């Protein structure tokens, strides 16, 4: 680790020890510098529900081929942030740009995003194949059947293509959801707890799939509670708490063991 990573770690620790109100603007100003033009950018994103701020001035900048692992306790605002990045929710303040275009209201920008949510977002009365082909057609995929079979094969689900989704276990449904999220070859993949319900083989297949997509230039945002899984893929890692980004580091600046300890302390004590 060189001087840059040491500086980053020092900055992260400083942010960690600051009160939340002071920490957020510091992080926005000193967020990790993107090496190239950002593929996905959030600028001061705030989302208010009634009197409660679910997100408070979150700023991110992710270049193509990067992976942000987003950690945080329940209710930190991770899912809200993901829904705003996907264009499903309108931010109260701030903007989200995908390759320079706003994701919300711009169909061309939405076409470049793949979303994996808590829920399967599948129709349980339809078969696995029917679900994926429907999505492929909505996105205007050139050969929907071939693309469907290719994505199912990558998740080891091709032999179950004719089964109705309701006949599948939670883990197998999760694989189908992942196949649905990647069938149109998205440039940005937003993943909310993608390892939920997956067995060891499924988790391994997902890790190698995501690594491959990242190597091909896809930008990933990975929301997870599992630090090891997140850090295995990440080029950046961030921690959210009470709607704010309270820490953001380059992956190479992170030492896994100490990060876990610092994260636990941050989540339980900060604020």
């Amino acid at each position, binding site marked *: 680790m060189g001087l840059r990573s040491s500086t980053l770690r020092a900055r992260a620790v400083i942010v960690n020890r600051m009160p939340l109100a002071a920490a957020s603007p510091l992080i926005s100003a000193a967020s990790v510098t993107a090496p190239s033009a950002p593929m996905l950018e959030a600028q001061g994103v705030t989302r208010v529900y009634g009197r409660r701020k679910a997100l408070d001035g979150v700023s991110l900048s992710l270049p193509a081929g990067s992976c942000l692992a987003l950690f945080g306790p329940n209710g930190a605002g991770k899912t809200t942030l993901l*829904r705003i990045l*996907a*264009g*499903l*929710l*309108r931010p109260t303040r701030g903007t989200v740009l995908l390759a320079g275009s706003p994701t919300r209201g711009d*169909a*061309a920008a*939405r*076409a*470049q*995003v793949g*979303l994996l*949510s*808590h*829920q*399967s*977002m*599948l*129709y*349980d*009365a*339809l078969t696995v194949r*029917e679900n994926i082909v*429907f*999505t492929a*057609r*909505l*996105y*205007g*995929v*050139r050969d929907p059947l071939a*693309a469907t079979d290719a994505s199912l094969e990558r998740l080891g689900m091709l032999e179950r293509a004719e089964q*109705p989704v309701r006949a599948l276990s939670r883990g197998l449904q999760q694989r189908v959801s992942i196949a*649905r999220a*990647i069938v*149109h*070859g*998205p*440039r940005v993949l937003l993943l909310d707890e993608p390892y939920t319900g997956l067995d060891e083989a499924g988790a391994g297949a997902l890790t190698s799939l995501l690594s491959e*997509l990242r190597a*091909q*230039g*896809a930008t990933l945002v990975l929301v997870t509670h599992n630090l090891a899984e997140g850090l295995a893929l990440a080029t950046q890692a961030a921690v959210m708490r009470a709607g704010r980004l309270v820490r953001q580091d380059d992956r190479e600046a992170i030492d896994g063991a100490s990060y876990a300890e610092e994260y636990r302390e941050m989540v339980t004590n900060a604020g």
Partner: protein
Amino acid sequence: MPADAVVRARPGLLRAALLIAAKDLAIELRTRSAILSALAFTLLAVVIFFFAWDATAVASIDLAPGVLWVIFTFSGLLALNRSFALEQNDRALDALLASPVDRESIFLGKALGNLVFVCLIQACAIPAVALFYNLPLTGVWPALLALTVAAAVGLVSVGTLFSAMATNTRMAELLLPMLALPFFVPVVMPAAQVTARLLAGRPMDEAWPWLRILLAFDLVFLVACTLAFPYTLED
């Protein structure tokens, strides 16, 4: 797998609507839950109206149009209730909203699926009512079928919009009729009037003013609901 490599061109408004309607109908064909309950409701309602009818007080030709359109209205509500309910399971609606199709396409697709569904129910209701009330359908049924489609356009336009609005509430099944029924009146009233004149063998000139009212409301409801729909999905 970059997007450009696999994506041809996003489907247009109508193509996306057709995809969504076909998906909804495929789900209904697979489960048959709503169609069977709507058909059972239709037949039961015809039977109840029949036994509540005093043939010495009201002629069948006077009563039947009202019966037909009351059944049409309430069986239509069954179809409309399920329209967005099936998108709520596992939040499939999020996948539609995150996709690059316009929200107007989602509305038109849903409305088209509902239109087919409502017309199917009416295709069963008309012969059932004709059988119980001994109606002279010969020579009238093509016009009655066209009238059904015209009335269904207005009904599903309003119903699909309110179904989307009600679906996120806790009492969607109660809220939908309360919201939609007042808006069904300008559709059902002219439809019943035209039906009465058709069954009585009156000249078409007599029915034409009612038909114009029906078509005008169809147009207004379809355009207004299509434009209003995107706002119903805002969080």
